[in-house]
């Protein structure tokens, strides 16, 4: 049922209640309970969770009561009651506990069987086979129960998984051993029954059955641990938003569950609390730590009008803000969704593995059947049944579709999660794979490499006045001007904490400059033409020095005499140089693209160490530049703002949107850097390379493992070396193979990407 928009006066009486429901046997039951509850008058929202047997109901306490709810459920044929307090992840931990218990039973009863078998008859006594049978029984029936149950479920769907292979393998070993215990001379039956008693009793392999189940459970236990860690990054992101929020309704602070916060609510956050939903501040001032969301390490000051985001941490002051985005609309949830969706996408590299794993299990079953027949026919008569069974079981238990299936998703999950932590969002597995092949990076100058606004970068004086005095006088003269160059000068003066006098008079000549009276002195500020008009000379050399460096010169004269020149340019961003350097050390060809003239463009390129410059490119020409580079055989990544650059981003082999901040839904790019920091780019490319490297290792290992393991288990080496793989070893190898794929993927969790470290 959908949430109903509630008026503020009514919402005050809304209550959320979890009911424990019993008597449900299937999903249809759950839906019936859900429908019943939502039809009760006053119920606003209702969902029934079949797994936890819980109904979560939001209702209006004025029109309905808990009793009415339980009665309604009872009338539908189920029972509902108010549950005792309990943890939410109970089911999961119960499952792990169960797994541990089953494992313990397998070890307790299986170990004696294995020891007896390994003793090669030294521990045998009359009836010892029966004792082994007795010990193996609980391992099969209790420890192995989930495996057999899951296998049955899969077979019912005419599909086959890991469990089918293990169940068939252990089942075969066990049943064979039971038969061998009851009829020990069966192997020499038929025409040669007479030879039966020269000690040719059939060997039993109870230890194989018990050990396989033990190893599979052990593998599953390790796997579930590793798997939990693989999803950690996203879970931790998701947990950033608090469970409850304090909202201001009718002037009263009320604590409500997060799901009840509506757009337009006023939300209160105290120092040390995390922000529950997205919104804009209406009252208060505080600094907010947004590092978890954007990777930005410095706290951001927030006051009235500023935007705040769910999951970020309010540190110093109390904030009141109006909720603008709630539920799955918040930036945090958007990020989580983008990553989750991306984790589920298919990487092109995994296509072969997908095809193989789709038919893997049935094919292994066919191989197992062939193995049985071949050994039965080819082995000497006395041992043919034993050999056939043993090798068939080995084939069944060594084959591991899981390693193959896990190879790509596990690495993607860890890699993309790690990326999200670093403020790098990869939109799909295909983009990640594309990113790993990039050799050329195209950067837009303005806003990416430079700050995008003019600033004072150099001051040259004639020697008559200090730099500071020149700047202070100029700033005073320009203080009334709205010109961007003037604003840059004033900003620089205030950044240097200079005392700037108020001009006594001020006159601007458009296109030339200003003339002002400051502290009784006449100040001219402007271009060379301005100086020439007033007969000021001597500035030519300084002017040339600035111009040749791509700066715009602002000349200053006091009382008719030139005193200095201020060079203004769009300065490089602090982190751009180190980002470009990281890219180059990765072997990238770094290309700059700009609409600017050659002069300023090459100044920036020189300062940053960029390989190649395309200057004077119109916005619509960007895609053309990308095509040009691609025609040279390069794999091009284009960095842009995601909106104006959409065609170029789409043309590139990889589009990277930078500084999307919390607006992650932009689509033209395959990778989004949350932070407006170019160092995210080498981080993203490095992450892609490492993740693809791990995927390649995983796939290689999983393929190789199965390609070698299955023939060896089938006994192919026997003809040459007399070597056979025991089912026990086969199952150990199988368990370790999927665990090793997971562990290899988990290495990405602690991936160090030096370029992604914050500014010192």
């Amino acid at each position: 049922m959908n949430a109903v928009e509630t008026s503020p006066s009514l919402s005050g009486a809304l209550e959320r209640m979890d009911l424990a429901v019993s008597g449900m046997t299937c999903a249809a039951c759950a839906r019936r309970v859900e429908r019943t509850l939502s039809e009760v008058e006053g119920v606003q929202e209702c969902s029934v969770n079949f797994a936890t047997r819980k109904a979560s109901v939001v209702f209006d306490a004025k029109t309905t009561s808990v009793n009415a709810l339980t009665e309604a459920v009872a009338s539908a044929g189920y029972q509902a009651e108010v549950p005792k307090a309990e943890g939410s992840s109970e089911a999961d931990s119960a499952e792990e506990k169960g797994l541990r218990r089953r494992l313990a039973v397998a070890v307790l009863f299986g170990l004696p069987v294995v020891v007896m078998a390994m003793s090669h008859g030294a521990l045998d006594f009359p009836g010892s086979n029966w004792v082994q049978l007795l010990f193996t029984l609980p391992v099969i029936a209790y420890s192995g129960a989930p495996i057999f149950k899951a296998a049955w479920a899969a077979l019912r769907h005419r599909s086959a998984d890991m469990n089918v292979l293990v169940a068939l393998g252990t089942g075969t070993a066990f049943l064979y051993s039971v038969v061998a215990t009851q009829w020990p001379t069966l192997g020499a039956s038929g025409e040669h029954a007479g030879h039966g008693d020269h000690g040719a009793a059939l060997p039993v392999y109870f230890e194989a059955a018990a050990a396989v189940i033990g190893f599979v459970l052990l593998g599953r236990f390790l796997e579930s641990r590793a798997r939990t860690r693989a999803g950690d990054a996203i879970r931790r992101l998701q947990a950033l938003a608090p469970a409850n929020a304090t909202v201001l309704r009718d002037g009263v602070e009320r604590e409500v569950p997060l799901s009840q916060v509506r757009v337009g609510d006023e939300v209160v956050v105290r120092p040390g609390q995390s922000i529950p939903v997205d919104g804009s501040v209406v009252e208060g001032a505080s600094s907010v730590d947004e590092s978890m969301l954007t990777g930005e390490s410095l706290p951001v000051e927030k006051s009235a009008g500023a935007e705040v985001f769910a999951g970020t941490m309010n540190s110093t002051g109390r904030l009141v803000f109006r909720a603008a985005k709630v539920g799955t609309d918040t930036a945090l949830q958007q990020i989580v969704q983008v990553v989750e969706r991306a984790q589920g996408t298919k990487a092109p590299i995994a296509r072969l593995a997908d095809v193989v794993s789709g038919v893997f299990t049935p094919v292994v079953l066919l191989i197992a059947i062939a193995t049985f027949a071949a050994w039965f026919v080819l082995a000497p008569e006395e041992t043919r049944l034993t050999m056939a069974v043993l090798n068939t079981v080995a084939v069944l238990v060594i084959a591991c579709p899981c390693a193959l299936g896990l190879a790509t998703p596990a690495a993607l999950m860890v890699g993309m999660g790690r990326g999200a932590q670093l403020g790098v969002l990869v939109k799909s597995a295909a983009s990640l794979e594309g990113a790993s092949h990039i050799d050329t990076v195209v950067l837009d100058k303005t806003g990416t490499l430079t700050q995008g606004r003019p600033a004072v970068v150099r001051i040259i004086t004639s020697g008559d006045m200090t730099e500071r005095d020149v700047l202070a006088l100029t700033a005073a003269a320009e203080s009334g001007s709205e010109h961007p160059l003037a604003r840059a000068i004033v900003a620089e003066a205030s950044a240097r904490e200079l005392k700037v006098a108020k001009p006594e008079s001020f006159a601007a000549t458009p296109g030339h400059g200003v003339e002002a009276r400051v502290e009784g002195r006449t100040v001219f500020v402007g271009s060379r033409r301005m100086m020439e008009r007033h007969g000021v000379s001597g500035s030519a050399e300084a002017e040339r020095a600035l111009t040749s460096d791509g700066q715009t010169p602002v000349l200053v004269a006091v009382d008719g005499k030139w005193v200095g020149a201020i060079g203004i340019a769009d300065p490089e961003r602090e982190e751009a140089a180190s980002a470009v350097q990281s890219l180059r050390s990765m072997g990238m060809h770094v290309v700059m693209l700009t609409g600017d003239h050659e002069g300023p463009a090459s100044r920036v390129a020189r300062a940053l160490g960029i390989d190649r410059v395309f200057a004077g490119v119109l916005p619509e020409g960007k895609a053309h530049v990308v095509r040009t580079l691609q025609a040279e055989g390069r794999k091009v990544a284009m960095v842009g703002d995601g909106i104006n650059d959409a065609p170029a981003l789409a043309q590139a082999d990889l589009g990277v949107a930078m500084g999307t901040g919390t607006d992650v839904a932009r689509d033209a790019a395959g990778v989004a850097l949350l932070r407006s920091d170019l160092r995210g780019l080498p981080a993203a490319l490095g992450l892609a390379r490492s993740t693809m490297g791990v995927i390649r290792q995983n796939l290689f290992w999983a393929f190789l493992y199965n390609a070698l393991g299955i023939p060896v288990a089938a006994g192919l080496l026997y003809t040459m070396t007399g070597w056979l793989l025991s089912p026990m070893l086969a199952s150990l190898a199988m368990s370790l193979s999927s665990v090793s794929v997971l562990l290899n993927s988990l290495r990405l969790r602690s991936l160090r990407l030096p370029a992604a470290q914050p500014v010192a």
Partner: protein
Amino acid sequence: MLDTTEVMVVASSLVAAAATALFFFGPRKRTRAKSETGGAQQVDLMVDGGYRPDRIVVRAGMPVKLNVLRTDRSACSEQFVLGDLGVSRTLPTGRVVSIDLPALKEGAYDFTCGMNMLRGRLIAES
């Protein structure tokens, strides 16, 4: 020469192999989506060690709503992937996840688990 037992074993192996292949790769039963008046076609899909039903026939050109319920806890089935349509969802055990699909063009759309081991097919027909 093969003795009788060997001949029997080989023969039954061949039969077993054929049966196995037919069992896994043979034709499957198809289930038609329920059409609801005015809304999307509804499909109830159970996930417990496999997809039930695993051959779903829907009408092309009409939106589809998949109500997916996973009842098992195997790690495999946790992801639901409809690759051709760009759908990838996490299925919490025991909770119905509704997936809205747009009107489909005629054709077959495979869905799988995250590891590509469980498989089913959505068939859009006119």
